């Protein structure tokens, strides 16, 4: 079985490709990337005007299964990811029960296999039940398929536990993804602390609830030599700390999400629960800092923190509504704005959405080298569309971007050589 | 547009009404004036002055806003501005002369009568208006009228006083749809 993707603009940061080329897929693998491939293929894709890149990877999503199937399931979550142009996602373990055992990892992989859509690279919990007290069996988790560990959704407040986790994870070369939040400073807040929270009378979360814990975690990464990854960085203060740490050789990486460079705390005005997330939306200065950090590489990757919630849960008083927004289906369109704005190049964007996440997770993806598994995303960077909840594959539609006009959308996705999305339609 | 009443004729009308009130009630004893907000209040003040000169007596004057008693409050597109009601004297046993600028359907006066009953039990209530334009919808008539002006239903009568409008005139014009 041969598939030939013709006339596309191939962007493969790892192989330093950024030109009009053809891509030949053969027996589930990339067989050739070159100008004007003449091979006879079983199927051909005309990718003229489109970008052809290594499959996009989202290192931070919530698929909600098991336990919260009314919000999302592995199936709806993977369909949403596929629609968004991703060939693989990393579901966080804050399910019910918490995904903290080998069988939980195997469940996710089994579901993904059964669905045969895109890949799942599970993230196991760092501590049992994400309670921050006892370490999980890292070795077993890894054997079950875990590519990273995280207590995401909750911080690891006990510094000693995080220290030991970072140390122990070295044996398995697993990255620990931390959700930085000083619980005491967080103190029941529900939006960024500042002018808007004062006006709205909503309990505020100071920036320092994030940055103070970022500072601590840098110390622990240095102390242990473990691999530490900062989830969803939202503030300039945290970024400054990470930039400094990296310049001094700390082994840390960091991500941000599209909402942190598109929106400010003002999106919360009128108590819009669709803009309620944790960490919260910050100020215009923070948005500018996030963009600078994306450009200079302080922020390594883009994830979505896709956090689906049902309409019932979000249709409530602001303080009672849950944190989180969906992101899988809007991520590419929102992120391409960075290229349009000149913040980063298209190649850098693909790097942050594909090659770099693969690097952090140590998975052999994110490039189109001959022989590599054929995970390929094809998107039309000029395609204009409006975010419409009726079109969502996700079970939920809790996003502040409803109604927004975006430019750029995935049209074709190949996972393991299977043509799983054809011209915008899931196969 | 030519006014149907100009400043001098308004003045004459006020003087005549003042005379008639005193004559009908045989003096100023027991009299009280209640002006309906807003131009009825202006007219009532003028009547008070005129009668003070004629009868050497200061007749108590109250101000009534009838909007809270209107029968169409819940039907109007925009609710009215509520002005002050100020009746600083007992109504019991008084002969109350209600004063308004224009008598039309009679509904304002109906509201005013309802309101007055909440303030006390006058011996008698009389009605003085500057203009009676007809088209009554309730069995109400004025005891004292400055001028009867026959009108069509599609006309509006504008009473303008110096105190409220900066000029003195009564004009009739076609309603603009």
């Amino acid at each position, binding site marked *: 079985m041969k598939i030939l993707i013709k006339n596309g603009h191939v962007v493969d940061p790892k192989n330093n490709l950024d030109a009009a080329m053809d891509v030949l897929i053969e027996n589930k693998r990339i067989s050739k990337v070159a100008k004007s491939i003449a091979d006879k293929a079983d199927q051909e894709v005309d990718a003229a005007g489109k970008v052809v890149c290594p499959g996009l990877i989202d290192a931070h999503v919530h698929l909600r299964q098991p336990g919260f199937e009314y919000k999302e399931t592995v199936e709806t979550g993977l369909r949403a990811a596929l629609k968004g142009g991703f060939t693989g996602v990393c579901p966080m373990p804050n399910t019910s029960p918490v995904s903290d055992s080998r069988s939980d990892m195997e469940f996710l992989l089994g579901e993904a296999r059964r669905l045969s859509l895109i890949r799942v690279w599970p993230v196991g919990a760092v501590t049992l039940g994400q309670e921050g007290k006892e370490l999980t069996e890292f070795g077993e988790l890894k054997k079950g398929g875990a590519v990273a560990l995280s207590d995401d959704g909750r911080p690891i407040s006990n510094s000693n536990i995080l220290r030991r986790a970072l140390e122990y994870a070295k044996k398995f070369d697993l990255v620990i993804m931390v959700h930085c939040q000083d619980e005491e400073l967080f103190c029941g807040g529900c939006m960024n602390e500042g002018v808007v929270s004062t006006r709205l009378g909503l309990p505020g979360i100071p920036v320092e609830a994030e940055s103070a814990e970022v500072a601590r975690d840098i110390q622990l990464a240095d102390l242990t030599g473990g691999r530490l990854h900062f989830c969803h960085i939202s503030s300039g203060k945290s970024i400054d700390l990470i930039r400094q740490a990296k310049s001094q050789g700390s082994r840390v990486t960091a991500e941000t999400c599209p909402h942190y460079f598109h929106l400010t705390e003002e999106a919360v005005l009128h108590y819009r629960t669709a803009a309620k997330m944790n960490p919260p939306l910050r100020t215009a200065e923070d948005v500018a800092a996030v963009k600078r950090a994306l450009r200079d590489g302080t922020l390594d990757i883009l994830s979505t923190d896709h956090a689906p919630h049902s309409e019932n849960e979000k249709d409530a008083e602001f303080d009672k509504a849950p944190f989180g927004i969906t992101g899988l289906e809007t991520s590419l369109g929102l992120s391409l704005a960075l290229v349009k704005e000149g913040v980063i190049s298209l190649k850098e964007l693909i790097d942050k959405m594909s090659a770099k996440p693969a690097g952090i997770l140590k998975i052999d993806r994110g490039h189109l080298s001959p022989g590599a598994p054929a995970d390929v995303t094809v998107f039309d960077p000029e395609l204009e569309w409006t975010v419409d909840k009726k079109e969502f594959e996700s079970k939920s539609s809790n996003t502040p971007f409803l109604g927004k006009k975006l430019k750029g959308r995935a049209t074709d996705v190949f996972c393991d050589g299977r043509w799983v999305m054809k011209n915008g339609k899931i196969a | 547009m030519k006014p149907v009443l100009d400043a001098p004729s308004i003045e004459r009308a006020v003087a005549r009404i003042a005379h008639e009130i005193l004559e009908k009630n045989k003096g100023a004893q027991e009299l009280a004036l209640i002006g309906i907000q807003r131009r009825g209040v202006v007219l009532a003040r003028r009547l008070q002055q005129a009668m003070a000169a004629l009868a050497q007596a200061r007749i108590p004057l109250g101000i009534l806003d009838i*909007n809270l008693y209107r029968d169409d409050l819940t039907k109007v597109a925009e609710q009215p501005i509520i002005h002050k009601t100020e009746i600083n004297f007992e109504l019991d046993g008084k002969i109350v002369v209600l004063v308004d600028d224009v008598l039309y359907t009679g509904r304002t006066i109906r509201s005013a009568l309802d309101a007055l009953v909440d303030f006390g039990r006058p011996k008698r209530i009389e009605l003085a208006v500057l203009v009676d334009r007809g088209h009554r919808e309730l069995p109400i008539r004025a005891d004292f009228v400055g001028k009867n002006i026959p009108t069509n239903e599609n006309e509006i009568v504008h009473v303008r006083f110096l105190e409220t409008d900066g000029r003195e005139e009564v004009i009739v014009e076609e309603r603009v749809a």
Partner: protein
Amino acid sequence: MIRPGKRENKDPDGARWMRKDLLSLEELSREEIELVLDTAESFKEVSSRDIKKVPALRGKTIANLFFESSTRTRTSFELAAKRLSADIVNFSSTGSSTSKGESLRDTARNIEAMHIDTIVMRHSSSGSAEYLARSIRAGVINAGDGIHEHPTQGLLDIFTIREKKKKIEGLRVCLVGDILHSRVARSNIWGLKKLGAKVTVCGPPTLIPRGIETLGVEVCYDLDRAVQDQDVLNILRIQLERQRGVFFPSIREYAAEYGISKERMKQAKSDVIIMHPGPVNRGVELAGEVADGPQSVILDQVTNGVAVRMAVLFLTTLVER
């Protein structure tokens, strides 16, 4: 010359009321605030009559929906509604289905299904009033939403100041106490600033919210200095249980640093007026002698509260849905 649908409604005074809801003073214009105050003046007279009732809202139904207990505010609204001849029903959260896990929207929709024109709501979540107003057709009067706003309290405070000082423009007003958790403070700040007063907030630094200066107020931590040139001192109630321990160490120290004592009053202007939204913690934020003293207008606030709420119910309930 009233004829339904034919009447001219242009009033030379300007402002018109077009809101079915009263959610905050932040959203009102200066003209709208003045319209409520002027209307309230007319209604104050009604309460002084022998027959304290006008038929203005005859046939209208108003629901008091209080998720936090507040006899004072609830009663004030109840009297206001009754004096306008509206029917008013009380729902309290305890014993109703809300304590059985019903959502706010469902509760409100159920009430609305009984054809209620206006809902007066007190709720512990900031923004709950705006949320409710978005969710239902009936009008919503915010009787206190979390720590956000308490617009009728703000209006009655401003009404009382205007009544006593004959103006608002240029007055110096100081709000004293827990600004962070005070919906009364936020409503006062918005309303007073719009009408041209100079507003200072004074309290322990722990209870002054970040960025409050951007609302155009001065911040002062020293009450002795703050009281000196004020025309009005509006003393906020300290929530004894909620704040002690983290925000200030003890009631004793709070009273010493931020209580309005007889002693402290000597440094204030002789014609300063003392306000308090009640109920007063005597001897904590306000000394008993001062609360009962000649400069106190606390009971006038209560009286005026009914007139202001009559004005608000009257204006909002008659707006077409």
